[in-house]
C-alpha cells in the first residue's frame, strides 16, 4: 500500500443527552436521561497519496475538525480504520505524531511568554531532532516564512499574522512528511495569506510533503489544492478535482445589464424569447441579470438581442465563483454532480 492516508468507514459518534421541557421534565431527567447519538463523521473512506495537497471543505459542523482530530490521534474513532504512514494513530500515538505536523488556526502551539526561538528549542527537544537536521531544515523554513526578525520576541507580542507564520514553522520542526492544517489562514490579511500559500507550495515541491487543509477560504484551496473533498453532515459528498467540480457545477454564466429605464420581466423575456434565459431582478428596476448556459454563441446572441431592443448603460459578464458553486451544492444537495 503506498497511500499516505488510508481511511475506511471512519465513524465518530457523540452521545449527548437532550433535556425534557418543564419542571416535571427536569425531575424525570434526574432518573432517566434521553440520550441522543449524533454522528459527527459518518463512515467516510479516503485515500491520499504521498505529496498530494488536498482541500477538505464543508460548512461549520460538517465534521471537518472531527475528522482531522481523528486522523491526528486526538480523538478515538467510534469505528472504522485509519492507517497513516502505515501506523494506527491511536495504537502508537507517541511514535505516530512524530511523523505529522499539525496547525490549528484557532489554537497556539507556542509558549505564550517565551521567545519564539525558545519555543522552537523546546519543540526540537520534544521531537528529538538533531542539531544538524534542525539547522539545515529550519534555515529554509525561517527564510521562506520570513520570520528571522521575530525569533527573539515573545509570542504574546506578535501580531496574528506573525504568530501564524511562527506556528507553521513550529509544526515543521521535525520535518514531517504529512501536514494537517485546520483553518490556517483564518483572520489573516491577504499578504500573509499569499506568503503562507507560497511557502506551502515550496514545501510541497522541496520535501514532497503531503498537506491536508481545511478552510473556509476557498481561494486557499484554489491556490493550493488540485483535489477537494467536500463534507456534509458527516458524509463525503464530493471527492475529486477542483476543475471537475467547476465544470460540472459552474456551467452557467451570468450577464448583468444596467438599463437606462426601468424594465419588467415580461419585456425582457419577450425580447430574448429565442434563447433559454432566466432573468433575475437586480438591486433596482434598472438592473437585471440573465442566467445563461456557458456557450459563446448563446451569450453573444442574448447580448445582441437585449442591446437591439433596450438602451443599456453598462453590462458585465460574470463566471460563477467556486464560492457560489459550493453554496449551490449545499443549498440544493448534490443531485446532478
Amino acid at each position, binding site marked *: 500500500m503506498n497511500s499516505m492516508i488510508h481511511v475506511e468507514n471512519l465513524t465518530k459518534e457523540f452521545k449527548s443527552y437532550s433535556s425534557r421541557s418543564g419542571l416535571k421534565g427536569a425531575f424525570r431527567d434526574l432518573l432517566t436521561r434521553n440520550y441522543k447519538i449524533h454522528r459527527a463523521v459518518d463512515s467516510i473512506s479516503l485515500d491520499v497519496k504521498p505529496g498530494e495537497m488536498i482541500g477538505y471543505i464543508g460548512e461549520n459542523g460538517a465534521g471537518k475538525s472531527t475528522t482531522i482530530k481523528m486522523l491526528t490521534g*486526538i480523538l478515538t474513532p467510534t469505528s472504522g480504520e485509519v492507517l497513516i504512514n502505515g501506523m494506527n494513530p*491511536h495504537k502508537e500515538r507517541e511514535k505516530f*505524531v512524530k511523523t505529522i505536523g499539525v496547525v490549528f488556526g484557532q489554537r497556539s502551539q507556542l509558549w505564550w511568554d517565551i521567545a519564539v526561538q525558545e519555543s522552537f*528549542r523546546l519543540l526540537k*527537544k520534544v521531537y*528529538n531532532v538533531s542539531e544538524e537536521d534542525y539547522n539545515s531544515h529550519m534555515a529554509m523554513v525561517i527564510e521562506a516564512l520570513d520570520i528571522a526578525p521575530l525569533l527573539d520576541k515573545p509570542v504574546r507580542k506578535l501580531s496574528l499574522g506573525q504568530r501564524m507564520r511562527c506556528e507553521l514553522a513550529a509544526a515543521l520542526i521535525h520535518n514531517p512528511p504529512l501536514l494537517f492544517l485546520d483553518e490556517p489562514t483564518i483572520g489573516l490579511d491577504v499578504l500573509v495569506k499569499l506568503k503562507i500559500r507560497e511557502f506551502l507550495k515550496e514545501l510541497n515541491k522541496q520535501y514532497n510533503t503531503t498537506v491536508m487543509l481545511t478552510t473556509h477560504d476557498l481561494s486557499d484551496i484554489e491556490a493550493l489544492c488540485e483535489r477537494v473533498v467536500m463534507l456534509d453532515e458527516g458524509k463525503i459528498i464530493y471527492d475529486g478535482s477542483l476543475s471537475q467540480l467547476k465544470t460540472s457545477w459552474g456551467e452557467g454564466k451570468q450577464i448583468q445589464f444596467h438599463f437606462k429605464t426601468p424594465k419588467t420581466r415580461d419585456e425582457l423575456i419577450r425580447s430574448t424569447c429565442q434563447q433559454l434565459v432566466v432573468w433575475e431582478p437586480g438591486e433596482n428596476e434598472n438592473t437585471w441579470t440573465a442566467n445563461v448556459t456557458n456557450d459563446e454563441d448563446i451569450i453573444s446572441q442574448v447580448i445582441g438581442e437585449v442591446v437591439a431592443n433596450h438602451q443599456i448603460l453598462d453590462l458585465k459578464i460574470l463566471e460563477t465563483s467556486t464560492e457560489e458553486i459550493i453554496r449551490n451544492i449545499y443549498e440544493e444537495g448534490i443531485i446532478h454532480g
Partner: protein
Amino acid sequence: MSHLSIFVQYVGQYMKTRLTYRSDMVVEIMSDLLFQAVNLIFILVVFGHTNLLSGWSKDEIIFIYGFFLVPFALFSTFFNIWDFNERYIVKGELDRILTRPIHSLFQVILERMELESMFGVVTGLAVMFYAGSNLGLTISWYDPLLFLLFVLGGAFVYAGIFISLATISFWSDSRTDIMPMMYNIGNFGRYPVDIYNQIIRYVLTWILPFAFVGVYPAAFFLDKTEWYGYAYLTPVMGIFFFSLSIFLWNIGVTKYRGAGS
C-alpha cells in the same frame, strides 16, 4: 533518559519566564509561607486549651505537620493540576498536548509545574527540626533514606488521588467542586488518625489515603512503634495509587471528546 532531558529543558524555560516576572514569584512564596504559618498557629491555639490530643503532645503534632509539608510541597510543585478540567478539557488545550510525542500526563505535569512551591520543603524541614529538637529525637543513619522514601510515597499518594480526580473530566466536562473539597479532606491527614472515629479513619487509610502523607510516616520518626506497619506501607500505597491514576488516565484519554470548533 530523554524524559529527564526534556524535564530539564522545561525547567530551564520555566525559570526564564519566572525570572521575568520576579515580583509574582516573591508574592507566591510569601503567600505560601503565610498559609503555612496560619496552619501552625491553628495547632498552637488548639494546644492552648489542652496538653494532649489522644495521647499526642503538641510537639509531636507540630512534627507531623512539618513532615506533611514536605510531600505536600512536592505534590504542589508537580502534580497540582486542579485546573485541568477548565484549562485542558473545556478550552481544548489537550488537543495540542495529544499532537506531541510525549506521554500526555507527563506533558501536562511539565506545563503546570510550579517550582516555587518547593520552598515548602524548607519550611517543612525547619518545622520538623524545631519540633524534633524539642522532643529530643535522634537521627539514625537510615532515617534520611526512609524519610526520602516516605516523602516520595506520600507525594505519590497525593498525586494519585488528584490525577484520578482530574481524569473524571474526560468523561464529564461539567465543572465540579470536588477539588477544593479534596484539599480539605487532605488536611485531615495532618493530624493523628486516632482522634477521628472509625469510619473517617478507615477512609483516610484505604479509600482516600491521606493519612499516608502525614501521620503514618511521621509516626515512624516519632518512634511510635504501633504505627510502624502503616509507615512502611507508605511507599507501597504511593506506588499503588499513582499507578492506578495513570491507568485511569490512559483510559480517560481515549474518551476525550475535544472542545468544539
